[in-house]
Structure formats: structure tokens, C-alpha cells
């Protein structure tokens, strides 16, 4: 005989004693009238009881109890005695030495070989504005040297022509 489909959850809640007083009363009335639900309820009670029986838990021995208690107390003592990390650092400045040394090395390395290394290592500009102008003027002559040579040739040619005309 099967339990009522709409009472399946109620049967389980009854087995686990989770029904409120009103639900419990309704259930008791239903159980008395319905052999299917009653059989299922009793079977489930036996099953849960059997499972409980089959899984006994060994008692903790006094020795184990002491061991757990001792380790908990030891860890708590350690935690309490251990100062906060920042206090630890400030309390022992020597601990900062490696960190500071590393930071210095990093800063120096980036300072010397960073992305602006080539610009920073070029010679400093010591020439004045006037010197700059002279340099720029000379630079014009140098870049147009070929053209100036051609002008000299033309000038000589003109001189020859003028001379011929006068003669």
C-alpha cells in the first residue's frame, strides 16, 4: 500500500519531528485513517533508526581530548603573543634593511637604464644663442657648397664673355 502522493513531505517532516502543533494534529488524524501513510511513516522511522545504529561514533579518549585542548590553547597563545605585523616591523628596524636595499637598487637601475637613459646621458648644452646662429650660418654654406661652386664657374664664364665683348 502506497502513501498518499500529496502527503509525502508531511510523512518525512513527521519522521523528523518538524511539524508544528497544528500540522502534527492533522497528521495524527490522517495517519490513523490512512494505512499507506502509516506504513510509510513507520518504515522511514525504522530506516532512520537503523542508520543511526549503524554509524556509532567512538568516544574521544581522555588523551585525545587533552591533545585537542592543548593544541587549541597553544595556537591561541601563539596568536596572542605574536604582535601585529606593523609593530613587528617597527620594533625591529633591522628587518627593513633588505627591503630598503632592494628598493634602492631598483631605483638606481631604473634611473640609469630607464627609457630616458639616452637623453639623460647626452652632453649638456653649453653653447650660447650667438654660437648657435654662427653654427647654423656655417651649416647653410656647407650644405650649399656645390651650388656656390657652380656660381663661381658661372661668374668666371661671365668674365670671359665680358672680356671678349670689350675686345
Amino acid at each position, binding site marked *: 500500500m502506497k502513501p498518499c502522493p500529496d502527503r509525502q*513531505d508531511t510523512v*518525512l*517532516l513527521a*519522521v*523528523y519531528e*518538524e511539524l508544528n502543533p497544528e500540522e502534527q494534529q492533522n497528521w495524527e488524524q490522517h495517519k490513523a485513517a490512512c494505512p499507506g501513510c502509516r506504513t510509510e511513516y513507520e*518504515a*522511514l522511522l*525504522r*530506516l*532512520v533508526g*537503523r*542508520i*543511526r545504529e*549503524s*554509524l556509532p*561514533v*567512538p*568516544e*574521544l579518549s581522555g588523551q*585525545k*581530548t587533552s*591533545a*585537542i*585542548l592543548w*593544541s*587549541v*590553547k597553544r*595556537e*591561541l597563545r601563539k*596568536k*596572542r603573543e605574536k604582535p601585529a605585523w606593523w609593530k613587528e616591523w617597527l620594533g625591529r628596524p633591522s628587518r627593513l634593511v633588505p627591503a630598503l636595499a632592494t628598493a634602492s637598487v631598483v631605483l638606481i637601475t631604473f634611473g640609469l637604464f630607464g627609457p630616458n637613459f639616452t637623453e639623460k646621458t647626452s652632453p649638456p648644452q653649453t653653447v650660447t644663442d650667438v654660437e648657435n646662429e654662427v653654427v647654423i650660418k656655417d651649416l647653410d654654406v656647407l650644405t650649399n657648397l656645390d651650388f656656390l661652386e657652380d656660381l663661381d664657374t658661372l661668374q668666371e664664364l661671365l668674365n670671359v664673355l665680358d672680356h671678349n665683348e670689350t675686345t
Partner: protein
Amino acid sequence: MNPQSGRTSDLESEHSLSGVNDAVLVGRAQTHDQRAVEELVLRYQQKAYAFAYHFADGNVQDAEDLAQEAFLRAFQNLEKFRGDSSFYTWFYRILVNVCLDGRRRRGRWQRIFLPWQRESTDKGLSPEERPDPEAHERSLKAISEKELNRDIQRSLESLPEKQRMAFQLKALHGMSIQEIARVMGTAEGTVKSHLFRATRFLREKFKDWEEG
């Protein structure tokens, strides 16, 4: 429960804390009272061990380690306990998390180093899948009590994690559904669903035993 009240209230006895309620003990433990810590550990040690024992599939050493770790975590974080729930529920929540972490660690270890064991125990079950009773079905009529106990243990082990947790807390540790919901950090309806599924699976699995 307000832990503050534990600090201010006068204890009935300095020599015996067994009659002192959890709230008072927690208040004292928060001020590093070693005797209060000791009393709380003694009060919940066996329960914690029993839960861990069931969750560690009957491995005594693992159960001891899990219980110890749960106490350590609880007392290391005791200042965070605000008394929104009972110490018992709060501690069980930590215990459940420790057990789950331990189980996952063991699972990872086994997956990496003992794949042949996994094959023999997992049978390809995904953790959240409802196990198929048919896959485990065998005649229980002929088997002895000892075999039945082993079968029950194996069936519990084969349950998905949350179903197993809900069933253990209810059937083996007598917690209410409301308490289990707090411990598992989930809704009561979800706990009911896990509990019902687990019970129905076990009912189906041991139908032959019941009928026989």
C-alpha cells in the same frame, strides 16, 4: 545572545564553568580567559568529533584533525562572533566548512595521486547529481548486519555533499531544519529539499532490507 553581557555578568562560580551558558563563556573567551576556552572546547568536542567522524567516512585520525582545526578556526576568529546566532550554530558552520575543505583537499589529492582509487569509489558520479538507486541496488536480504552497516556507510558516502550534510545534521546529530539552514548558510526550503532527497534515496536503496 549578546557576548557583551558575558563580559559584564558575574559568574556564579569561578571553579566550575559547566553550568555557565555559552554566551557568558564566549564573552570570557573573547577576553582570552583560558578556562572559558577550555570549557567551550570540552562542551562541543565530542559533537564536533562525531560530525567530523561521519564526514570523514569513519577515519578516526581525519576526524580528530578536522575537529581540532574547527576549534582553532573558531577561537582564532572569536572576536568576529557578534552573537547573531548561538555559539553552537556559529561553531557548527565553521566545522561544516572545515569538513568540506578537508573533503575537497582529500579529493584533489586522490585525483592527482590515486586515480585508480577514484575509479573504484566515484563511479563517475558528479557531486551534485542525485545518485541513481538502481546503480547501487542489490539484494539486501542475504547480507549480514555487518555488511548492511557497510552498505549504509557507502550509501551515505555516495550522496551528494549537501544532501549528505543535511541528512547527517538532522538524522545523526538531531539538529532542527532551522539550525541546519543557519549552519549551511541556506534557506530552510533548500535544506528540506536536500533532506527529503537524501531520505528518499536511502529509502529506495534499502527497500529490500525493510521488506525483508
